[in-house]
């Protein structure tokens, strides 16, 4: 399997990355190289194996419903590019079509 230029464009829009035509070309080649490398995994026989999405063989790791102190608000807002009334200020969310 290899990705087309159009698929890479779609991928970049899903990841909210604004790429130039030149970058798209470059990444299409690079992504396909990586995919080619991963193809090696297809050589493995995984018949009868369960998917293993977790890195450790543990379960039921939980905590009790206890309130702990939260972060100080000044330090929470220190990374906000813009703020107003102690809130994060963001640009227009939806535009009319």
């Amino acid at each position, binding site marked *: 399997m290899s990705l087309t230029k159009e698929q890479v464009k779609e991928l970049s829009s899903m990841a909210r990355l604004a790429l130039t035509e030149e970058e798209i070309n470059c990444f299409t080649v690079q992504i396909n190289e990586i995919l080619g490398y991963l193809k090696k995994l297809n050589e493995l026989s995984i018949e009868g194996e369960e998917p293993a999405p977790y890195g450790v063989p543990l379960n039921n790791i939980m905590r009790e419903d206890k309130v702990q102190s939260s*972060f100080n608000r000044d330090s929470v807002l220190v990374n906000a590019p813009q703020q107003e*009334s102690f809130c994060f200020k963001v640009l227009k969310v939806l535009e009319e079509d």
Partner: protein
Amino acid sequence: MKYETIIGLEVHVELKTDSKLCCGCSTKFPAEPNTLTCPVCLGLPGALPVLNKKAIDLGITAGLALNCKISRECKFDRKQYFYPDLPKGYQITQFYAPICRTGWLKKEFPTGRRRIRITRIHLEEEAGRSYHSGAGIIDSDYSLLDYNRSSIPLIEIVTAPDLRSPREAKEFMEELKIILEYTGVSDCKMEEGSLRCDANISVRRQGDRELGKRAEVKNMNSFRAVEAALEYEAKRQIELLEQNTPLESEETRAWDEGNRETVFMRFKEKAYEYRYFPDPDLLPVIINDDWIKGIRNKLPELPNSKRERYIQEFRLPKDDAALISSSKPMAEFFEAVLKDYSGEPKNVSNWIIGDLVRLINQEKIEFHQIKLKPEALGQMLKILDQGVISSKIAKTVFEEMFYTGNKPEIIIKEQGLEQISDVQLIQEIVVKVMADHPQSIQDYLSGKKKAKSFLVGQVMKETKGKANPGIVNVLLEKELEKIKE
């Protein structure tokens, strides 16, 4: 031509936990913006979420109360999309292995009793709260984000398309709210957003088997809005059918409360690609029989069963039983009064539904905040049945108990409210009242029966309402007869 409306609901319910789903930040509301956040619920790099066990408990509780199968293996997935209220860029939710599947809720509708099937219940986290600078999201130049709500635990309850009218949808929501409150799953405050629902609605000609294309209606913020929005939408879709221009593709619409209409938001034809995958930070939760049994044993008696029992065991009328059982604190109060009071249960429900509810509404408080103790009401009813106080005086005593929380015996004694049944004493007052109102006696003798009621009223007034009205009547009758002769 007859039409059928088909409705399914997706109900979001904030769980009643003290802390968030994956971190120890408080869930309290209201709070100053952005004071209840930490690296986990802000999605800062390197933070490690750890599940709140209470959220799982409450998910199981909701599932049991709604007759669902509880999954033995409950896993969490990431749903990825970009939106300013979602700081991590993904929502922790359950896509592949929800905590509950296939349940039902039995509900008495005007058209009969039916089971509304529950397709699934899954756990997920809340998003932050946005405040838009303009009137709506479209005409806002910017928005402000408060992440206090980010990562508060939620369950989403998805029903099968089993509801057949906007009214049924509303009544289902009301019943669901009662159950979730009873079981302590949520405080279900629609006005604060801890209970919300979206509806999928379509119409078809009666007898058609195939479902029509549906619209998803969002932004219904009260039970009344659910009914009004769905009524509007059903009517709109029927008109389209009649013009032979039915919905061609699925769409999302929003209820506009001000203009009382649903407004087009977007087509659903392009399914969003959320790229769900198992969240590697959150390990599976294995739910065993003991865990489920422990929760089942702690489930309170559910409103449906209470309602039936009140009708069977206490001979309450259907409406009284439904009203009392609709609120857990009210039902508990009712049952507690009956522990002390062995008289007619209907007497108890009359006082609760009448005077108590009136005073609670008047004072704008919640049922659980009342000072009145159930033992006090039981005691008052006993005193009333014994004839120590009249039912009119009982109203005064009741109000006093409501406002002060005092015992009825004390109120009656301190304010001298015992009913006067002393024949001698009442006789004296009757004679005095008759002497004071010769005109009324003339009126009575000339055939005006009303004059007698007036005289009874005067005797009651003289005794500040404390005279036993039965005795007053008999004595007055006797005196009037004497004059006639």
